[in-house]
C-alpha cells in the first residue's frame, strides 16, 4: 500500500523585520521533515531567514461567497479615515 504524506502550508520570513508570508505547500510525514522539505523547495536562493509550516487541514478560511457580507461594512465607515475630517489650510502638523 502506498503511504500518503500529509500536506503542510509553508510560510517564509524574507528577513527580520518582515512578517512570514505564505509561499506554497509541501508533503511530509511530520513537522520536522516538512521544515526540511520547505527549506529545499522554497529557500534555495536565500529567500528567507525563518520558516513556518503548519498542517493544511488546520487552516480555517473565510468563504469567498460571503466576502461582501464580511468586508463590505468597512466601506460605509469613511469616518475611520483621516481624510474624512476637514482641517483649515492654515492649521499645520495635523
Amino acid at each position: 500500500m502506498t503511504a500518503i504524506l500529509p500536506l503542510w502550508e509553508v510560510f517564509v520570513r524574507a528577513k527580520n523585520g518582515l512578517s512570514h508570508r505564505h509561499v506554497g505547500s509541501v508533503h511530509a510525514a511530520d513537522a520536522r521533515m516538512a521544515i526540511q522539505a520547505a527549506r529545499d523547495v522554497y529557500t534555495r536562493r536565500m529567500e528567507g531567514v525563518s520558516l513556518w509550516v503548519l498542517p493544511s487541514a488546520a487552516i480555517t478560511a473565510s468563504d469567498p461567497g460571503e466576502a461582501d457580507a464580511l468586508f463590505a461594512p468597512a466601506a460605509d465607515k469613511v469616518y475611520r479615515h483621516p481624510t474624512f475630517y476637514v482641517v483649515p489650510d492654515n492649521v499645520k502638523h495635523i
Partner: protein
Amino acid sequence: MYTVELGKQNDVEAVAAVDAARHAMFEARVAADDFIEPKDWMPEAYRKTLIRQISQHAHSEIVGMLPEGNWLTRAPSLRRKAILLAKIQDECGHGLYLYSAAETLGISREEMTEALHAGRAKYSTIFNYPTLTWADMGAIGWLVDGAAILNQVPLQRTSYGPYARAMVRICKEESFHQRQGYECMMQLASGTPAQKRMAQDALNRWWWPALMMFGPPDDNSPNSAQSMRWRIKRDSNDELRQKFIDVTVPQAEALGLTIPDPDLKWNEDRGAYDYGAIDWEEFYAVVRGEGPVAKDRIKARIDAWEGQAWVREAANAYAAKQNQQAAA
C-alpha cells in the same frame, strides 16, 4: 441522470439561473484581469483545463530532470557538475511548486503521479529525446529552457492566482538555466574542432524539437481560443515560436554555429525570420509516446516512486508513533 435532489422543474430553473449568473460574473472577472483564487467559484471546464495544464507542466519539470541527470556523473569539471546539480534541483522545485498549485484545485498529488505513470497525463515532448553528448547539457539550457522562458513569462499573469505565483518563482530561476547553457555552448564552440563539432551536433538535434515545444500551429490548436479568453494562455503558439526564432538566431551567430534550417532567412518586410517547415508528423508521434526514450522516462519515474515507497511508509510510521507517544 435523475435529478433526485431537484424535485420540481422550478428548482432546476432556479439552479440554472444561479449558475448562469455565477458564470457571467466569473467571465467578467477574468476578462478584467482579476485573479481567481482556490475557493472562488469557477466553471468545471476551467478547473479541469487548469488541472490538466498545471499537472502536465509539473510532470514536464519532473521528467525533465532525467535527461540532465544522465550527465551528472560525467560532467567535465567540478564547476559544471555543481551548476548542473543546482539546475536539476531547480527543476524538481519547479515541479513541486506546480503540483502544489494544482492541488489547490482539488486533485491530490497521488492522483497526478498515478496519471503520469499510467500514461494518462502527458509531459513536454522534448524530454523524450536522448541526451547523447555533454554538449546536449549546453543545448538544453540554451534552447529548451530558452523556449520554456518564452512560454512561461506570459503565464505570470495567468488568471489562476496559485499558478501565476508559481510561475513568478519559476521564471526568476529559469534565467540562470538558460545562461549557464549558453555559457557551456560558448566554451565548446570556442574550443577544439572536436568540441565545436559536438556543439554544432547538439544544436542540429535540439533545434527542431525546441521549435515544437510551442505546440502545434495556431490553425491546428483547438483549445486555444477558450484558453486565451480564460487567460490561462496569453500568446498564440506561432507568435511565441516566431519570437523564439528571432531572438535565438543572433545568439547562434555569436557562437559561430549554424541553425540547421536551409530556409531560414531574414524577412525585411516582416521584420522577422522566415523558417522552414516543421515536421509535425514527428511531433504527433512523440506526443503519442513514440519518442526515442519515452518508455525509459516513464519507467525511471515508476521505479523511483515504487522503489522509494518504503521511505514514505517508514516516515509515516515514525510520525504515527511519535504522535502516539505525545498523546500518552
